[in-house]
């Protein structure tokens, strides 16, 4: 009996590994929608007996799912207020519609907004205004779009809620919003500043616009961009409270998902007060429709698949292999995690990668003196996975959204042309991260 049990577990380890590799391969091929792939693979994990349903559901990180969904609802409502257009125009006018000044300001707006809201929504709302401004100024939009891709991914790295990898890491480790800000924001500020340098040298110093064209942008009335002041006030109050909740989460004894979902519910309540039942249904449905269900179900399926692999002990074996490789040296492990996650995230989706790395890094705890000792590794994973997304056009979903806009504006961003510039700049940001990790933790 004992023997057959051993064989079964070795068998399920192989089965899980094969399922996992196929899932990755099919997601990378982009032939089948990633939500479908993840859910089919998750179903097979259960049907083929690697996991039972109960174990599968335990594998889903509902804190991540809740935080993502809640923030998506809040953003779906907030975007209707026109606040993003306001910020873009306001910042452009602050620098007297100077082309390079606008590039810097729009990049900063993108970075700060991406730090608190999701990157895709940020670029979706800021790119059209930027294109209007560059069209008025008759300047090439390419450097602006290039810089926005970088800013959204760099900004997103700075906080717990900025980028899905951080949400997952925070949720799995209990690291708080403040931990992320305290440990990541300083290096992000440096990286943001350093990234603008090559952009200035390559394009920025050549950007010129005539006085009349600049005058046209100066005449934009940013306050007219706000479509609904009441809505804006409601959204800003709720976002303010949600951020307050994240900052004081530890003292409030609340987890991120509770804060985000409660914020979403409170905002829905505020905007629907006094509306008829019919109108309420329409509004609530519209807000829910904007939730990216493909992403959410991709996460659900993926968590189950990774949990399946993890439960067979495969990731533990891999973790031991990796530690054997680095000789149990924390610095070497951190550097390997940072650089490999950066390069892999430039090519593949960073979400499945991070979902796999989390249990793998957790399994290393005994070698580095318990969970506390893993801190530098979490920051290495976050910096690598988030910043690596800048390396190629397919590295992050925000990149693809910007590329789509560029295409429609008649200024397509070519894959190779982008990679040739972006990959070295991305590696530069990883080099800065390496120095930072050594200086502060290793």
């Amino acid at each position, binding site marked *: 009996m004992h023997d057959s049990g051993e064989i079964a577990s070795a068998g399920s380890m192989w089965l899980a590994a094969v399922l996992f590799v196929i899932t990755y391969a099919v997601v990378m091929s982009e032939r089948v929608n990633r939500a479908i792939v993840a859910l089919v693979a998750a179903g097979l994990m259960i049907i083929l007996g690697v996991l039972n349903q109960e174990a599968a559901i335990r594998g889903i990180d509902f804190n991540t799912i809740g935080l993502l969904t809640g923030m998506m609802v809040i953003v779906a409502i907030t975007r209707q207020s*026109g606040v993003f*257009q306001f910020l873009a*125009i306001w910042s452009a006018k602050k620098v007297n519609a100077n082309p390079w000044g606008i590039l810097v300001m729009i990049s900063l707006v993108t970075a700060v907004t991406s730090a608190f809201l999701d990157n895709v929504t940020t670029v*979706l709302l800021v790119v*059209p*205004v*930027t*294109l*209007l401004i560059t*069209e*008025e100024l008759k300047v090439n939009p390419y450097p602006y779009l290039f810089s926005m891709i970088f800013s959204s991914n760099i900004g997103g790295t700075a906080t717990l809620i900025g980028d899905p990898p951080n949400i997952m890491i925070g949720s799995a480790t209990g690291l708080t919003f403040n931990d992320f800000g305290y440990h990541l924001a300083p290096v992000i500020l440096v990286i943001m500043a350093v990234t603008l340098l090559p952009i200035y040298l390559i394009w920025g110093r050549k950007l010129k616009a005539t006085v009349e064209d600049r005058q*046209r942008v100066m*005449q*934009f*009335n*940013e*306050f*007219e*961009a706000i*479509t609904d002041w009441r809505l804006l006030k409601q959204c800003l109050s709720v976002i303010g409270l949600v951020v307050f909740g994240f900052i004081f989460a530890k003292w409030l004894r609340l987890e991120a998902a509770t804060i985000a979902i409660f914020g979403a519910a409170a905002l829905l309540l505020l905007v629907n007060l006094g509306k008829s039942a019919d109108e309420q249904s329409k509004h609530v449905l519209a807000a829910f429709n904007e939730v990216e269900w493909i992403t959410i179900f991709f996460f659900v399926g993926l968590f189950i698949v990774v949990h399946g692999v993890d439960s067979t002990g495969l990731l533990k074996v891999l973790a031991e292999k990796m530690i054997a490789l680095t000789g149990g040296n924390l610095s070497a492990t951190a550097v390997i995690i940072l650089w490999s996650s950066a390069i892999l995230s430039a090519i593949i989706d960073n979400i499945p990668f991070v979902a796999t790395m989390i249990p793998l890094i957790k399994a290393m705890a005994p070698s580095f003196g318990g969970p506390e000792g893993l801190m530098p590794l979490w920051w290495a994973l976050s910096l690598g996975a988030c910043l690596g997304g800048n390396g190629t056009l397919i590295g992050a979903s925000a990149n693809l959204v910007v590329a*789509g*806009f560029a295409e*429609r*504006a*008649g200024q397509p961003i070519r894959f190779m042309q982008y990679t040739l510039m972006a990959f070295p700049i991305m590696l530069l940001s990883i080099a800065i991260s390496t120095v930072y990790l050594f200086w502060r933790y290793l």
Partner: protein
Amino acid sequence: MTAQNLMNPNPVTLRPTDTVATAATHILTHRLRHLPVVDDQGRYLGTFSIYSLLRLTLPKAVIMEEGLRDVSFTTETIDGLARRLRERGSEPVGQWLSQDDPVMHPDTPTMEVMLLMLRGRTTSVPVVDQHSNRLEGIIAFWDVLEKLLVETR
């Protein structure tokens, strides 16, 4: 009765190489909303319409898919917009055609013609030969209405 009997067999047409300025003049002088564009063999390529002109006049950031939904913050005057249109006056119409507008065939039944106009919210529909893709004529709503009101008495 089919599209064949309703259509105007000699409509004003454009070549893809004609300029936007020429098209605009035709639209204004004949008060036409849609001008069919044909190649040298008379094959239908698409329609240049008043909507093409509006698109030409507006910035790309506004007309593109998922572009700005609201531009009430702009202060551009009619002069500015006129200049924008003038600057593009020498562009060929070929790249501004709408190709997904509904078309009919000579044997399309009258009721289908009317339904297409209603569903497509369009006032004139090109009639195109199914096989050769040649433009046979154009049906304006006025032709249909005239037949309905005048000729049936």
